């Protein structure tokens, strides 16, 4: 009867041990660090560490260690912020423009923990300082961009079909055609359907009127495209900013949320993220040698020298065939089982493309990606802002046929195809973007928030501890031990899931501590009742746990529901609160029902007979 099954105790011990290991990285705190990534997106290998170590030693800057992480980023840890900043300047000077260097904090945890993939809890913006931006993408604008392009296309369709018309007008998601001859409406409808089978084509209100409407699918595709395109562009620019651990995600139908930890200059960030990218389609010059041009630094007449993504020279003709403004869509697909990128241009771009491909069959054509970025560099001891327009050839392909506004780029791997489609989209005419929410938290406020939050947590816990011991004596000590285990468990889970700890999250931990005692209290009060009724100590313990179970479960489900709703409808820091509340309820159920029972077994289990329980 007095036995608590050994396997259950083993589970408790195992869970606790695992949790302690998972929570361990949080104990070491953080230290100033630099995080670097290569601008050509290639990974750093551990071989590169030596290079940085030599540089820092040459400059006489003390550092703790340098290592490359699994994502191919280079980390250097420093004892203090001054050394970190000195090192940043030194590295930027030595490798101007090659790496994105971000000042950040790295866990002080020993390397073997980091190698195991164990990380401390990440801190939310309200605790670490930084900028939070919400952009709204003008999806309606994106849709009317599409109908305007279709308008031009339909004029051409009508011309080609020799159907005279008075007017073609785009309005929202639809296009209205007024024909000169009402009798030819059916013919016009057939021609439109043939041009774009996806469009839904109907008769208008008046005779001779034809209305082409974008299907909901087309509208959704266009909206998704507009959002994805902006996310890609924002990603590229944030990477150039050199922010450690940025978060960029779609929020709802038409918003994009951007979190930039550690950044303080809002105006500068907004300006940089607002930069525009574009594309140029150009013919490759096949007569002159690019290597020669690179060597002499002079491009032959009528050509320009570019670099491809590997840094190799490419000579392109000066004439531009089409630009990003004329790009409607780019997506990676499979063409006859081969990876390919589908490209759609607008009518004007298509016409130019048709003319060019007819004259240049079999010759190579290139796509250039252009983005202006801003960078702060040090020259002659002064920090200055340099505008640099980065131009890069992202694709060279041979023209295999005559085409106009719809064509495919093949001869790529799946990954290359996806990357190219992404870059093409980023360079397309961007749907307008507006900031609808902007929050900035200064670093000192973040520090204060952490400090105050943890002070409230520790004082609150301390008083609860004392109270529980006074009130329940030995069982109070059990409850207190359980509470500590509970906090360890929550910390472990938050670290494991990489959920960000926010100020409301800390409040959630505090609240959980208060409510976690509840399960214990329910059990102990039951045990006391059983004892009052004259039950023997062991039976009282057993009865206490058994009878309190249904009340404990019912009582916690209600709070669980509230936590789920908070998560579903909350945003930002509030979600942090919801996550902690949810996890806290689960861990407190586990610790109260299994942990505390196992601990009581340890305390009382060895005795044959217990005369009294210290409760």
């Amino acid at each position, binding site marked *: 009867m007095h036995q608590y099954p050994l396997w259950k105790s083993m589970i408790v011990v195992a869970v606790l041990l695992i949790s302690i290991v998972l929570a361990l990285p949080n104990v070491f705190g953080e230290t100033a660090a630099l995080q670097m990534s290569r601008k050509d997106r290639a990974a750093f290998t551990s071989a590169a560490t030596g290079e940085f170590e030599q540089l820092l030693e040459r400059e006489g800057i003390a550092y703790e260690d340098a290592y490359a992480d699994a994502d191919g980023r280079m980390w250097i840890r420093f004892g203090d912020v001054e050394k970190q900043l000195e090192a940043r300047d030194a590295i930027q000077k030595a490798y101007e423009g090659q790496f994105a260097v971000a000042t950040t904090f790295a866990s002080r945890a020993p390397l073997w923990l980091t190698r195991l993939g164990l990380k401390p809890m990440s801190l939310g913006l309200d605790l670490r300082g930084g900028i939070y931006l919400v952009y709204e993408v003008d999806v309606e604008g994106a849709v009317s961009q599409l109908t305007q392009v279709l308008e031009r296309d339909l004029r051409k369709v009508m011309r080609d079909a020799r159907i005279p018309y008075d007017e073609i007008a785009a309005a929202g998601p639809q296009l209205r055609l007024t024909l000169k001859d009402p009798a030819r409406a059916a013919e016009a409808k057939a021609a439109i359907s043939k041009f774009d089978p996806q469009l839904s084509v109907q008769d208008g209100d008046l005779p001779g009127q034809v209305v082409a409407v974008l299907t909901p699918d087309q509208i959704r595709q266009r909206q998704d495209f507009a959002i994805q395109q902006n996310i890609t562009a924002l990603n590229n620019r944030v990477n150039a900013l050199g922010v450690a651990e940025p978060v960029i995600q779609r929020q709802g139908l038409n918003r994009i949320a951007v979190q930039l930890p550690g950044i303080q200059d809002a105006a500068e960030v907004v300006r940089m993220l607002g930069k525009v990218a574009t594309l140029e389609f150009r013919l490759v010059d096949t007569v002159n040698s690019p290597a020669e041009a690179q060597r002499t630094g002079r491009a032959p007449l009528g050509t320009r020298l570019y670099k491809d993504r590997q840094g190799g020279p490419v000579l392109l003709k000066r004439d531009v065939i089409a630009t990003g403004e004329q790009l409607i869509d780019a997506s990676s697909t499979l063409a006859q089982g081969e990876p390919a990128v589908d490209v759609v241009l607008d009518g004007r771009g298509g016409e130019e493309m048709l003319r060019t491909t007819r004259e240049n069959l079999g010759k190579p054509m290139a796509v250039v990606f252009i983005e202006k970025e801003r960078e702060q560099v040090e020259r002659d001891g002064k920090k200055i802002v340099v505008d640099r327009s980065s131009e890069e050839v992202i694709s060279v392909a041979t023209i295999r046929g005559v085409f106009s506004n719809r064509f495919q780029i093949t001869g790529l791997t799946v990954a290359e195809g996806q990357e190219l489609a992404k870059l093409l989209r980023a360079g397309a005419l961007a749907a307008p973007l507006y900031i609808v929410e902007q929050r900035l938290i200064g670093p000192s406020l973040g520090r204060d928030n952490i400090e105050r939050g943890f002070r409230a947590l520790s004082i609150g816990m301390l008083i609860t501890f004392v109270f529980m011991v006074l009130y329940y004596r030995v069982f109070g000590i059990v409850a207190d031990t359980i509470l500590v285990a509970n906090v360890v468990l929550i910390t472990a889970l938050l670290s494991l899931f990489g959920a960000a700890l926010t*100020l409301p999250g800390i409040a959630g931990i505090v*609240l959980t501590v208060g409510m976690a005692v*509840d399960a214990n209290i*329910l059990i102990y*009060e039951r045990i006391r*009742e059983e004892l009052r009724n004259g039950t023997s100590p062991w039976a009282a313990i057993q009865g206490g746990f058994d009878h309190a179970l249904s009340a404990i479960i019912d009582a916690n489900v209600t709070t*669980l*529901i509230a936590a789920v709703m908070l998560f*579903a409808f909350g945003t930002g820091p509030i979600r942090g609160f919801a996550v902690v509340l949810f996890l806290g309820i689960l861990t407190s159920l586990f610790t109260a029902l299994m942990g505390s029972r196992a601990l009581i077994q340890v305390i009382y289990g060895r005795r044959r007979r217990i005369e009294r329980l210290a409760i």
Partner: protein
Amino acid sequence: MEFFHKVSHFRFMEKRRLWYAFSALIIIGSIVAVMVRGLNFGIDFTGGVVIEAGYSAAADLDATRDALTAAGLGSAQVQTFGTADDVLVRLPPAEGQEAMTLTQRATDAIKSVDPGVEIRRTEAIGPQVGKELAEKGATALLMTLLFIGIYVIMRFQWKFSVGATLAALHDPFVVVGFFAVTQMTFDLSVLSAILAVIGYSLNDTVVVFDRVRERLLSMRKAKPIEVMDTAINETLSRTIMTSGTTLIVVLSLLLLGGEALTGFATALAVGIVVGTYSSIYVAGAAALDLGLSQRDLMPPEKKEEADALP
């Protein structure tokens, strides 16, 4: 140490009519307060701009106000925040991009008063986002009540459910009323505290009801009112302990957690006190007046068996 070494015998239910009147009074008071004074909504819900600035010494509010007026921001509210060194500036909502520009202008104006000032926090929220956050919050509130109601109906007899739901409605009313009377800022964190309060208050109610259900089966001869009193008395020590410990930690949040958590912790503290009261005097009393009796739990054996399963 024990509050009640023997089980107490307070006759809670005897004067329940009086407590009904009391509850009705505070609910009506809350509604009147919300209607007359309104809630002091934070910019989470209204949109607008908030800037928190920290001066190195006691802030000169008038100078700050003058600088803002000079920058064409005469509608700004300027007040100290937490300590005398900290200033909070609030600007009314403006459309879209405008709010972001206003932030920059206000920040520049504040810096012109004292270049050493530290901008601790700025928040600019477009009115549309504010409206959506408010809608989402209201949805979350309704959904929480709905799902908790469904859960309680599944787990308990309907008379309990009505009582529990009444109590769950009662508590947010009082907390909202408190914020209307005090004119403390009602923002997203306060709303989330209210959701937590609903969960917490029901937690309390459920524990009492669980005991009522048990006692209805074991005290077959007793009158329902005696059963209710017994159940409440038997769980009283637990109720005081749990509310007490939770209140301790919430008060430590309120007193030590800093200005950012004041609204949140206040809502929780009020909610815990009211929630404890309502689980006895609203939930229990309502179930009793709905004619709760032993008959409601027939056939008892089956019911008990089902309840033992978590």
